[in-house]
């Protein structure tokens, strides 16, 4: 059977009780305009979009046009707990998000350091345990630390989202070996690279490692042409996934010609 790019109907996967065919998860922040955000999300083919909660000014129409655009897209919404610095704050934000957005999905984000926005593993595990018991499907943002992943699994997480590198840095995958180790240790877990992706090739690399999906925002929203970049990431994620499923060749320490050597003509017969 021949597979072609864009033939995503053959590429269904399940996450959080939903069956989807795009493995790209996209953020809704930082776009030049709401219209540009809408175009980029549509072009990306993403079926999960991240959203957030912030203080509402008195008299404001709650959520405004932004939320109406997101609702009109008809795709899954993944609220985050961005801005939380403790398990308590994250839990409260998650409960508020469940009521506002009408979903039990939550991207659990508890920041432990304001300089590099590194997640706090201790508070993240604590919050994950409470939220899972409260019926949430937790998508925890974490580092590429295998032991933290184990602790999150211990408290019931079925999904883990290790960072590629710092949020918004665009540096790509800092520690591919760590990410490989998590993939190897948890073959049944849904693993999504979250944060640090800067270029389509980073997303391809993540998918080639066997990760189930990639979540990114800045790389698309901050591109000179976000809509075109959204298209690029759509292809990049598909390419990486197809590459992983195809089984890459083993690296070799020596050269090996691809053209047959039997029947090589002319020149080898002439010697000075």
């Amino acid at each position, binding site marked *: 059977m021949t597979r072609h790019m864009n033939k995503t109907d053959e590429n269904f996967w399940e996450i959080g009780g939903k069956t989807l065919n795009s493995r790209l998860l996209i*953020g*809704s*922040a*930082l*776009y030049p305009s709401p219209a540009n*955000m809408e175009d980029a999300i549509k072009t990306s083919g993403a079926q999960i979009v*991240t*959203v*957030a*909660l*912030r*203080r*509402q*000014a*008195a*008299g*404001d*129409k*709650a*959520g*405004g046009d*932004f*939320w109406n655009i*997101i609702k009109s897209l008809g795709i899954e919404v993944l*609220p*985050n707990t*961005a801005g939380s610095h403790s398990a*308590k*704050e994250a839990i*409260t*934000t998650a*409960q*508020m*998000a469940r*009521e*506002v*957005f009408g979903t039990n999905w939550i991207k659990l984000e508890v920041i432990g350091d304001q300089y590099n926005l590194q997640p706090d593993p201790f508070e993240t595990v604590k919050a994950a345990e409470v939220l899972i018991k409260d019926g949430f499907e937790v998508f925890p943002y974490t580092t590429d630390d295998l032991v933290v992943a184990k602790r999150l699994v211990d408290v019931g997480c079925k999904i883990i989202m290790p960072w590629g590198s710092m*949020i*918004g840095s665009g540096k790509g995958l800092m520690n591919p070996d760590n990410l490989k180790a998590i993939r190897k240790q948890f073959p049944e877990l849904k693993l999504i690279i979250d944060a640090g992706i800067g270029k389509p090739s980073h997303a391809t690399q993540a998918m080639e490692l066997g990760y189930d999906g990639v979540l990114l*925002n*800045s790389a698309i929203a901050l591109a000179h042409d976000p809509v075109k970049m959204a298209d690029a990431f759509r292809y990049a994620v598909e390419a990486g996934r197809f590459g992983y499923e195809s089984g890459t060749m083993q690296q070799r320490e020596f050269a090996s010609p691809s053209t047959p050597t039997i029947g090589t003509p002319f020149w080898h017969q002439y010697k000075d």
Partner: protein
Amino acid sequence: MIKISVNGEMKEIQEGLNVKEMIDVLKYKTKGFAVAVNTTFVAINTYENTIIKDGDMIDILAPVQGG
């Protein structure tokens, strides 16, 4: 009158109001937001049973863009 903090701003409201009444008084009229009192979530079906007290810290959150 009691003093409360609403989304970081100090406000004065009548004593004895519940969350639903406070929202009306402060003109948070539309749906689509969620409320926390002193960093604890208050579900929409408990607004009328939750009385605002002097010094309470209220957060009223609405959807925004996120990554």
